[in-house]
């Protein structure tokens, strides 16, 4: 059982015009097995929350705390956060020229498991993960995210989620740019990870359609850098009907 606790998190980003405060005190607790949907309009700070927890250097923590089972996440380097059990599925996964998917996956698995996975079982593991996500085996020899379609990038992120077995995963708009079939396949991958690893999920999205496939236990509405309303799955239905207008004007 793991718990990610975010307390009064305040984050700013440096711009040409100086530091701009984006997160203005976020409180959120995620426990293994739970799924939290974070919904909100563009520019409300949802992605900033995701990247700040993962440790992107662009963001400056101004105040508050993030702990995973009591350990200070904000004090960890980016790779240490992954080793502690955090995973960020990115909205825009980065191209790494000349580095093959298979080399990348094996390097990551070696780092996270503390030893290189045995070649024989590893090949099977990767094959299985790829088949489950309906990916062409040739994918493994392509360079990381280079020339991938939007859907391929997202499948690749979820494949990592399944292979690397984190405790808590933040999915940053994993649903954006996916057609109905890809959305279903990717969602099934997330649900498998939940089932197999008792994964805790933070699902960041604009739209309710992914919530048909990945059932949230809690829904949080994000606006102007903080959570402005919380509720159960029925809150998503309300958002679907009314949009974010009520929250943005606050």
């Amino acid at each position: 059982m793991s718990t990610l606790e975010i307390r009064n998190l305040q984050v700013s980003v440096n711009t040409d015009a100086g530091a701009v405060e984006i997160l203005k005190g976020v409180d959120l607790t995620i426990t293994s097995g739970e799924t939290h949907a974070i919904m909100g309009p563009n520019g409300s700070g949802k992605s900033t929350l995701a990247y700040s927890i993962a440790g992107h250097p662009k963001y400056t923590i101004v105040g508050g705390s993030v702990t995973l089972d009591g350990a200070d996440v904000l004090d960890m380097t980016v790779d240490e956060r992954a080793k502690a059990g955090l995973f960020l599925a990115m909205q825009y996964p980065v191209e790494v020229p000349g580095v093959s998917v298979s080399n990348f996956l094996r390097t990551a698995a070696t780092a996270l498991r503390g030893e290189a996975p045995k070649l024989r079982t590893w090949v099977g593991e990767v094959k299985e993960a790829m088949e489950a996500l309906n990916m062409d085996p040739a994918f493994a020899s392509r360079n990381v995210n280079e020339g991938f379609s939007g859907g391929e990038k997202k499948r690749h992120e979820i494949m990592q989620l399944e292979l690397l077995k984190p405790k808590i995963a933040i999915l940053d708009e994993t649903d954006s740019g996916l057609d109905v079939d890809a959305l279903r396949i990717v969602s099934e991958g997330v649900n498998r990870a939940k089932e197999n690893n008792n994964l805790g999920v933070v699902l960041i999205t604009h739209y309710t359609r992914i919530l048909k496939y990945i059932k949230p236990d809690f829904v949080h509405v994000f606006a102007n850098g903080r959570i402005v309303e919380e509720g159960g799955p029925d809150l998503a239905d309300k958002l679907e009907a009314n949009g974010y207008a009520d929250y943005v004007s606050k």
Partner: protein
Amino acid sequence: MSLLATNYLTPTGREEAWRFTPLKRMRGLHDGAAVIGDRASLISTHVLPAGVTFVRESLEPLAESDDVIIERVRGFSSNVAHLSITANTEVGQPIFLGRSKGALDTAELSRVRISLGNHATATVVIENTGDTVLAEDLEISLAPGSSLTFITLQEFESQSVYAARHHAVIDKDARYKSITVTVGGDVVRILPTVEFIAPGGSAELLGVYFATAGQFFEHRMHVDHAVPHAKSRVNFKGALSGRDAHTVWIGDVLIRAVAEGTDTYELNRNLLLSDGARADSVPNLEIETGEIVGAGHASTTGRFDDEQLFYLMSRGITLENARRLVVRGFFNEIVTEIGIELIQERLMDRIDGELAKAGA
């Protein structure tokens, strides 16, 4: 040739061709001050396959040169180490040439010829190693329909100076692919140059270099499209790390008025891994006819991409390993073109080592 005849050519550093080169570190190769040693260091390191000969003989130069050091080499000796591949021979295994022991107190002036007969195919590897001061006039003659992959590995020891022209003369429908790797030496200055003498030829000049503190590596291409319907590609990638690491890449491509149907593209990418290093990159495309298939160039010099490092690290990979992956990936595109596993691994290990040494 007497010293007087070439004296007026001695570069001062103000000439376009010499403006980047640290002449003081050339150990007298450029101004004739070097004491010439009695060495002929190029040797065959493996058994030569059938249809291949390697002899020393007197040969006239294939092509003119306006490089002062090449002129000095030619003035000094007509003796040429000649690797010859008989017409219609397809040599499956790479042909390896290497270096016997060099010296730093005297200089070697070397002339080399590689010639492929009609429709011959071969891969030639020259492994340049050791401590040496070496000026080299290396000419390659590709007969119609022949195909050469030419790999030179500059893995010299740290005090070496190497100044060379690797000049290919490409006849009808011949194919030339060169991979120039420069990772060792104090000063390395190579002129990879190509001239097409009949239509239908192709040249692909690939290169990688990695300069660390104090090293100077210069690669000065010249591709002369003097005939119609030839194709050329240039792609050099370099990394620099450490104080006063300096690399120069010059890409001169000339498409003459008669060279209709030319197809050319040149590319240079540099990765600066620390402060205090300098990469000069100068693509230069001269086009005298508009009747071409394509002509273009690109040059970039940048640092580590923070987004790439973040992405890798977010999967648990340490900063050090993330950097190593990115640098290996950067060079991978060209190193895999070598096609000889043993050499590829040796190079990647060397690159890892340079990176670790630099603490980048």
